[in-house]
Structures are given as structure tokens and as C-alpha cells.
């Protein structure tokens, strides 16, 4: 009895300190941090929008700029570990009191408790994670105090239509799809661009063209310059929607795409940086799907837009989780009304990953690189999606200090003695033949760099090579992880070929 009384006493004492749980609803709340570099946009007076649903609290805060790319609820050291769930950014439109508007990154941060600090690490464009402490306090029901309101950080994008839902995404955070009555859809991308999909036979609601680019279904005659997206259309069995390609037939490692080009169903319309405007215009192309490389040729994007061709920049390469890339199939599914097929294809890939997750990581040390024609060693950066796939498959990418690829080239030319000292004892070598020459024998690899003869993996015969199609097979990243997992386990001693990889003889 004394124990129960003591417990009740403790609860009564602690209740005001920990704070009473908030009722479900939307509140404005103070968002405090331990750094002057990490704070809420000045337009919001240090406040964020706190949403409570089923007792779970999430605060949406808008940053002053687009410098911060991801947050992580925890310590910086844990943010890069396999399976870490990163908080992706949204792109918010901020309106200042003087009427000036700007785009800035926003984040939905899970809040464990009020009035008490918790860890929240951040990563910027340099790819380095930093530890920070944040706290959320003074929640006030939204609209009752000068601060932000539910829609203040985002413009009204309903266009007078009733929202019916949002596409469920498991890994991707660089796009979203909102559904409205009548079959209308709004696609929002991380770069701030928006595309409003108008179903066949429907009219464009008023005011759309001010905040989103309208696209009318059925969408066909697409100019596809983003090579990573071709396999997503292929997996949807909708290559018929593509009329123009940014690569020639011989540049495709996707058989159906190559055949379509050879048969003249898809025409070469120039690379992303030199499109054939006349052919694109004459083909009545409504949409150009570009890779982020178009960021280096913005004049071309502008010219396409002047020709009334919508330019959708495929940002799957910015996805932190490899399967986030594959999940872009859902975006193309939404464009083509193939959501069910997209879901099925993606679920299959997610299933591959699930099967790997349940097994014990082998922790095999893996070197992934190629030797270029000048003899330089070229490796992927440590934070790149390939190294993440290796980690998800249970291996350990041996070059762990090559930085993140955000805002930089994904590859790096390695200093030879660093390469030698790091990779000499790697358990497994995976030779990246997607860019380099196709090779079939270990001797061919050693011929490119004689130092490789000393390597443990060469001596034990654990040298694998990627197929040429690896970079173009965005859809099948789950299966790729599964193949890597098999390579890292000891079950492939007698296996010479797996999907996307083959053993060098």
C-alpha cells in the first residue's frame, strides 16, 4: 500500500514537469536548438507546427534556407549506420511580412516529449553529420496566436478540389503525390517543382498554372533524357509513352528499350545537353524527363519550357535509401495511371530487401571500384547509394572516409597508396564495369593495375564484376541488394553468375 502511495506521489510530482499529454490536434510551438546555425526561419518567430495524432507528436519546422538536407532523431554517429531512418526534407514556400517569398527546406520531426531537450543530428550539402540538441515547448492551439498556421508554410494547393489522399511512400522522400477528387493529382518534387495531372476529358481548375505545371493525360510522346528512369517505364510495361530518347540504341542496356529504338518506335532526340528541339517540338512532346545533370545546363531547361514542354527532373539520385530510387516507379505510375502495377513492382523489390534484413550481416569487407584507361583508381563515395546497398546486404564498404555524394560527383579518384593500403585485405572485390571496360578474367583487371595481384580477394578468387546494366536498372535495386547479400555470404562458392554480377575467372 505504501508502495502504491509512493508511486502515486511520484506521478503527481512528475506530471507537471513532464507535461500533460496533448490532445490530438494542431498547435504552434516554440522550437529551440543549441545552435545559431540551426534554427527556424525568421518568418516564423522560432515556432513550428506541432501535430498530435493518436498521441504521437510531430513538429514541422521550416529552415532559413535549403542548406540542411536531412535530419536524424538521435546522434550523428548513428545516422550513417545501416537501417537508420533519416528525416527527409520538404520544400516550403515562406512568405515574409514584407511580401517577399522564398523556398526553404522544412522537416517533420517526431517529438518524444515536450519541454525537454532531445538529440537531433543534421547533415548539410557537405555530407557531414553534426550533433545538436533541440526542444519543443509552449504548444498553443493553432490559429490562436500570432505564428504559423496550418497552411502558412505551404501555399494552398487544393485548387478548390477536395483532397482524397496522399501516395504512401516507404523509402522515397524526394517526391510526393497528392490525390484529389475527379482523378486529379499533384506531384511535388524536392526541388520545389510541382506538376498537376489533369485526367483525360477533365478541364484544368482555375489557378493551377500559377503554382504547378499542368500535364494532361494521357501523357505520351515523352522525351526521356534521364537514363535511370527508362527501366521504370519498362517495368510498368509502358515504353509506349516514350517517343524520344536522350541516348542512342546502343547506349541502352535495357533490351526492350534498345529494340524499340532499333524498330524506330523511340527516336534519338539528342543528349540532355544537346536536345533536338525541332524533333521534340514536331513530336508533340508534352514532357521531358531529365536527370539532375540538367542543373548544369539550365538554359536548355528554360528553352524546353519556352516551347511549352514541361521539364520533370528525376531526383531519384538524391534519395538516401537505395530503394527510394526504385520507389520513383510510383511517380511514373501516377503519371501514367499505373499505380497498381507500380505498387506491385515496388513491393517485389521491397520483399528482396526484407528477406536480406532477416539474416545476420556477414560484415565482409568489400572494395567497389574500377581502373580507368589512364590507370587511375575510381571509387564511389562512402555515402553513395552503392555503399548503402553494400551495407544493407550485410557487407562493409572498405572506403569509409570518402564523404557523401550530396552536391558532388558520386565518384572519386583515389590516391594509389591509400587504395592499396585500404583494399589489399578486402574480402571481396567488385569491379565496376558499368563505366569501365567489360572484363571477364582476373588477369585483365590485374593488367590494368599490377598492384592488384597482391590483393587478398584476387588470391582467394573473390572477384566479381558488375554487368553493364547496373546503373540503368533502377527498378531492381532490391534484387541487386539480394545478389550482393548472396555474394557476401559463403553460399556462392560455386556460383559464377548472379543477377547484375558475375564472378571473374
Amino acid at each position: 500500500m505504501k508502495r502504491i502511495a509512493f508511486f502515486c506521489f511520484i506521478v503527481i510530482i512528475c506530471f507537471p514537469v513532464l507535461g500533460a499529454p496533448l490532445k490530438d490536434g494542431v498547435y504552434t510551438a516554440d522550437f529551440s536548438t543549441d545552435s545559431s546555425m540551426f534554427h527556424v526561419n525568421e518568418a516564423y518567430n522560432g515556432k513550428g507546427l506541432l501535430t498530435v495524432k493518436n498521441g504521437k507528436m510531430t513538429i514541422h519546422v521550416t529552415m532559413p534556407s535549403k542548406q540542411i538536407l536531412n535530419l536524424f532523431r538521435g546522434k550523428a554517429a548513428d545516422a550513417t549506420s545501416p537501417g537508420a531512418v533519416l528525416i527527409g526534407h520538404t520544400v516550403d514556400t515562406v512568405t515574409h511580412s514584407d511580401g517577399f517569398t522564398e523556398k526553404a527546406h522544412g522537416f517533420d520531426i517526431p517529438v518524444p516529449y515536450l519541454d525537454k531537450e532531445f538529440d537531433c543530428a543534421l547533415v548539410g550539402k557537405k555530407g557531414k553529420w553534426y550533433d545538436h540538441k533541440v526542444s519543443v515547448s509552449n504548444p498553443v492551439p493553432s490559429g490562436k496566436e500570432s505564428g504559423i498556421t496550418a497552411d502558412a508554410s505551404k501555399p494552398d494547393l487544393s485548387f478548390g478540389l477536395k483532397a482524397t489522399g496522399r501516395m504512401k511512400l516507404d523509402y522515397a522522400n524526394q517526391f510526393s503525390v497528392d490525390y484529389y477528387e475527379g482523378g486529379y493529382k499533384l506531384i511535388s518534387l524536392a526541388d520545389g517543382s510541382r506538376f498537376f495531372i489533369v485526367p483525360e476529358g477533365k478541364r484544368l481548375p482555375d489557378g493551377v498554372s500559377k503554382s504547378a505545371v499542368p500535364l494532361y493525360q494521357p501523357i505520351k510522346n515523352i522525351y526521356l533524357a534521364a537514363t535511370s528512369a527508362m527501366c521504370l517505364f519498362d517495368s510498368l510495361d509502358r515504353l509506349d509513352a516514350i517517343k524520344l530518347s536522350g541516348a542512342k540504341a546502343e547506349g541502352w542496356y535495357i533490351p526492350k528499350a534498345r529494340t524499340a529504338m532499333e524498330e524506330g518506335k523511340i527516336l534519338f532526340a539528342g543528349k540532355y545537353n544537346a536536345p533536338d528541339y525541332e524533333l521534340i517540338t514536331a513530336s508533340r512532346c508534352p514532357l521531358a524527363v531529365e536527370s539532375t545533370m540538367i542543373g548544369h545546363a539550365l538554359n536548355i531547361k528554360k528553352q524546353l519550357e519556352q516551347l511549352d514542354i514541361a521539364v520533370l527532373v528525376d531526383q531519384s539520385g538524391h534519395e538516401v535509401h537505395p530503394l527510394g530510387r526504385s520507389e520513383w516507379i510510383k511517380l511514373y505510375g501516377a503519371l501514367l495511371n499505373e499505380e497498381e502495377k507500380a505498387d506491385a513492382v515496388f513491393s517485389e523489390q521491397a520483399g528482396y530487401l526484407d528477406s536480406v534484413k532477416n539474416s545476420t550481416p556477414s560484415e565482409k569487407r568489400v572494395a567497389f571500384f574500377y581502373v580507368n584507361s589512364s590507370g587511375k583508381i575510381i571509387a564511389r563515395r562512402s555515402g553513395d547509394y552503392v555503399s548503402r546497398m553494400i551495407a544493407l546486404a550485410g557487407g562493409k564498404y572498405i572506403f569509409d572516409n570518402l564523404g557523401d555524394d550530396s552536391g558532388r560527383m558520386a565518384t572519386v579518384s583515389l590516391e594509389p597508396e591509400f587504395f592499396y593500403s585500404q583494399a589489399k585485405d578486402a574480402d571481396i572485390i567488385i569491379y565496376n564495369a558499368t563505366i569501365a571496360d567489360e572484363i571477364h578474367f582476373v588477369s585483365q583487371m590485374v593488367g590494368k593495375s599490377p598492384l592488384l595481384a597482391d590483393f587478398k580477394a584476387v588470391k582467394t578468387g573473390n572477384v566479381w564484376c558488375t554487368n553493364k546494366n547496373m546503373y540503368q536498372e533502377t527498378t531492381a535495386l532490391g534484387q541487386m541488394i539480394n545478389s550482393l547479400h548472396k555474394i557476401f555470404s559463403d553460399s556462392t562458392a560455386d556460383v559464377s553468375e548472379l543477377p547484375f554480377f558475375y564472378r571473374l575467372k
Partner: protein
Amino acid sequence: MSRIRSCIVFPLFLVLLLAAVILSIHIGSVSISAKDIVDILFKGDRSNSVAYNIIWKIRLPRIVLASLLGGALSLSGFLIQTFFRNPIAGPFVLGISSGAKLFLAITTIIMTGLFNQMPVSVTVIASFVGSLLSLLLVLLFTGKVRSMSILLVIGIMISYICSAITDLLINFANDSDIVNLTHWSMGSFSAATWQDVYISAFIVLPTLLIVFFASKPMGAYLMGEGYAKSLGVNIRAFRVLLVLMTGILSSCVAAFAGPISFVGIAVPHISRLLLKTSKPILMIPASFLCGALFCVLCDLGARTLFSPTELSISTVTSAIGAPIVIWLLISRRRRNED
């Protein structure tokens, strides 16, 4: 005065080169103690195989190649500046590197198209052959054109034509070919092997000797063609020899390290400013030594400044060399004004 200066500058170059070599052997992304290095170098200690291989198979061939090719590039720069009597002429002004790149582009497209392969050795051979073909073209004009300035313009035009054809070919090349060409264009000693060292030494050292023995007619040529003729120098043959030597030296550099910028233009300037003379008999060994020293130091910077990421050698040669030349020129002008 000039003799005293030479007595200071040459030992200084030698001591600095030796220091740069020792520094380059010692510094790298992998830390190896001085004692271990001495044991590996002089006692053949193989107990630490990683350190042994790093010293003998990575650092040493690289340092030797950098000094050989750095010297060659600087010397070819001096020759071309002498030939054209133009202080801003560089060894690649004759279209050597553009010719190398063009032939490399053609070879790469053919090789990857037919065999899906572009071995490193083929890259070296293609660059060398391309350089020599451009050189041959320049030599054809050398015999026909009397004016040096016209020959200089012809060299630049050859360079433009080669670049234009390369750009045209790039339109038909696949992405991997373009990536490889870009990497080659940036220049590097990264893939140096002892085999590269032997072949380079076989080309560079005899050329250096020939150039050195030609220093007397070269000195006469600098005084004017009439003066050189009066001393019995066959001007036409001499011009061909000068272009040939320049071309061979810079072709060798293009083949084994890619086009390295700045060294050929600036290092002869540095040598000239330090020696305060243009006499070929002094400038030839000085340019070679200074070029070797400069390239060894720049290569050390390229591999260690942002280790493990390796910078292209041209990034470092330009970033370090240009301010040095500006400083030398300004300080010389100030001294003259005083």
C-alpha cells in the same frame, strides 16, 4: 656575376630536388616511419610487405617519373620559347596535346566499339602516336615557312583543328569514353610504374643530351639567324632539330602523364629569373632540374593535399606556379626600379 649565381643556383636546385624526393618518399596517405623507409630502401626489408610495396611500387616510380617528365616538359618549354623567341609560348602550343587527345579519342572509340576494352598501354601508345603525328605536321611546315610567328599561328591552328575534330568525335562517343578522355586531359602521375619510368628515361635522357650538345648553336641562334649562319649553323636543319626535340619531349609527357599545364611555360621563366641569363648552356640543365623539382613537389601536393582524393597534377602546377611567377616578375621589376 653570372658564374657566381650559377654556382649558387645549381647546387641549390640539386639540394632542393633531393629534399623534395626525400619528402615525397616519406609523406603519403599511409604513414611509414623514417626507419622503416631506410630499411626498405637500403636493406631490402620486406617484413612489412604493405610498406615495401607502397615505397617500391607506388611512391618511388611515381617520384622518378614526375622528376623525369617535369624536367622534360620544362626543357621543351625552354626550347619552344627559344625557337619562337616568345616568352609565353608553351610546349603544347604546337598542337602536341591536341593531337594526342584526338588520336586517343579515335583509338578509344574504335577499341571500345570493337573490343569493349581500352587498356592503359594502348592509351599511352595512342597519346604518343597522336603527339608525333601533330609534330610531323608541324615539321612539314617548319621547312616551308620562314617566319616564326606564322609557324606559331600554324601550330595554334593545328591545335584548334584537332580540338574541333575531337569535339566532333565526342558527339559519337559513349559516356565512358568521354569520362576517360576527361580524366586523361587532367593529367596525373597516379598510374606510374617502373616500366613507364624505363621507357620515359629511354626517351628523355638521350634527348636531354642531344639538346645539351646543341646549346652552342642554340646560343648563336638566339643572337640572330644571320649571326648563327656566320658561325656555320645550318638554320633549316637546326630549326627541324629544335622542333623535333621539343615534340619528342612533350609527346613523352602527354603519353605517360597527360597534358600538364603551366610547367612548360612558367618553369623556364623561373629558371631564367633565378639565373639572370638566357644562355642555353646554363638554361638547359637549369630548366630540367627546376622542372623536375617543381613537378615532384606539385605531385606531392596532388596526392596529399586532399588525401585520399587525388587532385589532377595540372590543378596543383597552375595554382602553385602562377603566383610564384607573378611574385618573381614583380620583385625583379621592383629591384630594377630601385
